[in-house]
């Protein structure tokens, strides 16, 4: 039981510390930049933003 308590308490301190460090590193090394660009990754020159690609039902089939 004390082993478990020790591991649990230790992880309560350690895990957030690691998470915070990772977050700081991520922010400072620019991992959060370019994120708007990443949202455009499903699109390309052939199927750019603004183009519907699955218009097959209901009258005006294209």
């Amino acid at each position, binding site marked *: 039981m004390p082993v478990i308590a020790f591991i649990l308490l230790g*992880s309560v301190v350690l895990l957030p510390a690691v998470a915070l460090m990772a977050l700081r590193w991520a922010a400072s090394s620019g*991992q959060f930049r370019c994120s708007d660009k990443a949202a455009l990754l499903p699109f390309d020159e052939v199927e750019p933003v603004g183009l519907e690609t699955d218009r097959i039902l209901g009258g005006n089939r294209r």
Partner: protein
Amino acid sequence: MSYGPLLFLGILFTLATSWVGLILLPHRQMGALGQHTDTNTAAIYPAVRAGEAQQGAEHYRSLGCVYCHTQQVRPEGYGSDIERGWGRRRTVSRDYIQDKTVMLGTMRTGPDLTNIGERQADAAWHYRHLYNPQITSPGSIMPPHGFLFDVRVIGQAGRSTNALVLEGTFAPPAGHEVIPSRRAEQLVAYLRSLKSSGDLPEAPVKKEEVK
């Protein structure tokens, strides 16, 4: 920007946390749980199951009884398990250390069976119930388990002693009798062995009920 390795580590790290927390730690805490010996009566609980009952447990698993019957009694005041008479106390980890496959169950299409051996000790009841649940529990939706029984012509020596007592529409054709198969016998032995009410320090049975 390429951060594949970071992603990779993050993915492995997140699952590792619960793998340690919910698998390794509980295994450490409960994996070596042993039997309890009562200091007054020297009774050992939970007892090892007899061989026949152990084989019956395999049939219980194979027939999938667990999909409609639980084997866990929730604590007093949480649900009506104890009021319904399904157990005299809640079940705890130690109750299950003798089970090869722990079949707690998640569905109560049928009643809980934790203490069915105590609640219904009569083997004949179990045979008739398994043969066709409508005999003992009209309105039940438990499927009949006729395949666990043999229908035979009554021999020269007359009716077998272990033949089921069946009446009315449930009776076999004239001159025939219904005999439990080996599997049915083992299954019923297992059901009758289901008793999780030993007095444990972590789950005491209320004093006035202990004889």
